[in-house]
């Protein structure tokens, strides 16, 4: 059986076990909502269009937060390479912030930025910045000095060194960072939408929790996972186009990306 087939079979098997467990009646349908009940809740929300709205709102937040985090991470990583002296100023602070869970900042963020979109996006930025920053930084800083010498021998200036050697050389690490960062921003959506949201998948789950609708909670979880996977796929396709054939290069192999 091919890989795709095995993956699908695994999921079907899980669903069958789940269905069997709920039929067995050991747990009440409140503790373990049956697959058909969850599918029903999912279908109702899809049909009424509510779910699409939630997905759209969450996607928009994830996209905004992720983009800002990427720009910051890229700038930070590039600075670490070009101006290592400057990096020392923010290194300590970043090391500190890396150990602070974004959710612990919710109270302060609400005080400072209110309960609007800003606080939610900041949570996502905080969650996805570090994996991107660390990978992008590594990509820039660990560039092969021998390749840089080739550029110097051709009389390349700083800008050409960066755009023609450092940046393309760092592409695999940048893509890995972005991939991990995207996953982290999805995970952060629940935390972000804990802040007085009225839309979004995170809100959907928290609201269902308060209404004791475990089937809707499960439907929300399935949605987050599915949309996250879809995003990852889209990103993979874009990434592959961005690097085109370069992934065949030796330094670009086995990066876990392709």
């Amino acid at each position, binding site marked *: 059986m091919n890989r795709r087939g095995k993956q699908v079979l695994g999921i079907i098997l899980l669903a069958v076990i789940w269905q069997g467990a709920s039929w067995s009646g050991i747990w009440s349908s409140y503790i373990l909502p049956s697959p058909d009940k969850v599918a029903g809740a999912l279908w109702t929300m899809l049909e009424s269009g509510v779910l699409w709205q939630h997905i759209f709102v969450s996607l928009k937040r994830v996209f905004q937060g992720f983009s800002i985090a990427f720009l910051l991470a890229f700038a930070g990583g590039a600075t670490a390479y070009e101006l290592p002296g400057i990096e020392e100023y923010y290194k300590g602070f970043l090391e500190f912030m890396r150990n602070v869970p974004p959710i612990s900042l919710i109270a302060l963020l609400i005080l400072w930025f209110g309960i609007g979109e800003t606080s939610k996006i900041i949570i996502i930025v905080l969650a996805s910045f570090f994996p991107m920053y660390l990978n992008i930084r590594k990509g820039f800083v660990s560039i092969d000095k*021998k*390749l840089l*010498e*080739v550029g*110097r*021998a*051709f009389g390349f200036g700083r800008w050409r060194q960066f755009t*023609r*050697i450092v940046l*393309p*050389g760092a*592409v695999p690490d940048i893509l890995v960072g972005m991939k991990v960062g995207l996953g982290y921003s999805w995970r952060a959506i629940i935390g972000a939408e804990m802040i007085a949201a009225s839309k979004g998948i995170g809100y959907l789950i928290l609201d269902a929790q308060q209404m004791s609708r475990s089937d809707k909670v499960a439907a929300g979880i399935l949605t987050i996972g599915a949309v996250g996977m879809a995003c990852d796929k889209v990103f993979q396709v874009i990434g592959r186009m961005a*690097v*085109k*054939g*370069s992934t*065949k*290069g*030796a*330094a*670009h*192999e086995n990066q876990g990306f392709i």
Partner: protein
Amino acid sequence: MKIRDLYKEYRVAAKRIQVLKGLNLDVDNHGITVVLGRSGCGKTTLLRLAAGLEQADRGCVEMGSDTKVGVIFQEPRLMPWLTAGDNILFGTGKRQGRGKQKVLDRHLDYLLELTGLKGFEDAYPSQLSGGMQQRAALARALAYKPDYLLMDEPFAALDYFTRNQMQRELLKIHQAEQKGILFVTHSIDEALTIGNKVVILEDGGCRKEYDLGNIPYPRDLLSEKMGKIKKGIVEEMEKTGEIGMFP
């Protein structure tokens, strides 16, 4: 290219080591000048100074202000994310392009032909053998249209037969391009095969110079004449028995 009174010192583990001590060398602008020396005698240092990759403590490398040098390192140092064609064009700022956007670059075409890489322009470095990678590195340096080629033991990592073949090809390319070449090696045979002028680098300076300009290529190293020269060089190099330690 005239190298005058070159001094260079390194610090290794808080110890000062004088690698080059007032080295003088004339590099002919279309012959092959070979600098021969043991491992660690400062050959690579000399080449790096000539290439402008390092600064001399004293002395200078004299050449015209618009003189261009192409460097070929011990390793091919190709960009793994570029095809062979794009690697060759790397120093020129041009791109080969792919598929339909592919532009025919005459010079690239000529270089591919010259270095025997025709048909491999779309291959990535990891798909090429060591010898072919080094050819691409040579083509990359030539594409830059340099006045001088600086070569740092470029064939040292290749097997015996590939090495011989590359030496023959280098002679062919030299014939076609007529560039001044400064070639650094520790192999006496290699020096005798390709050098117009062979200079022995020892104790931070050029100890002895052999003019082989009157011996035509291809040379038979087993001939009596070459054997005599080789013997002389070996004896000369054995005089100082100490092991060098500089890069």
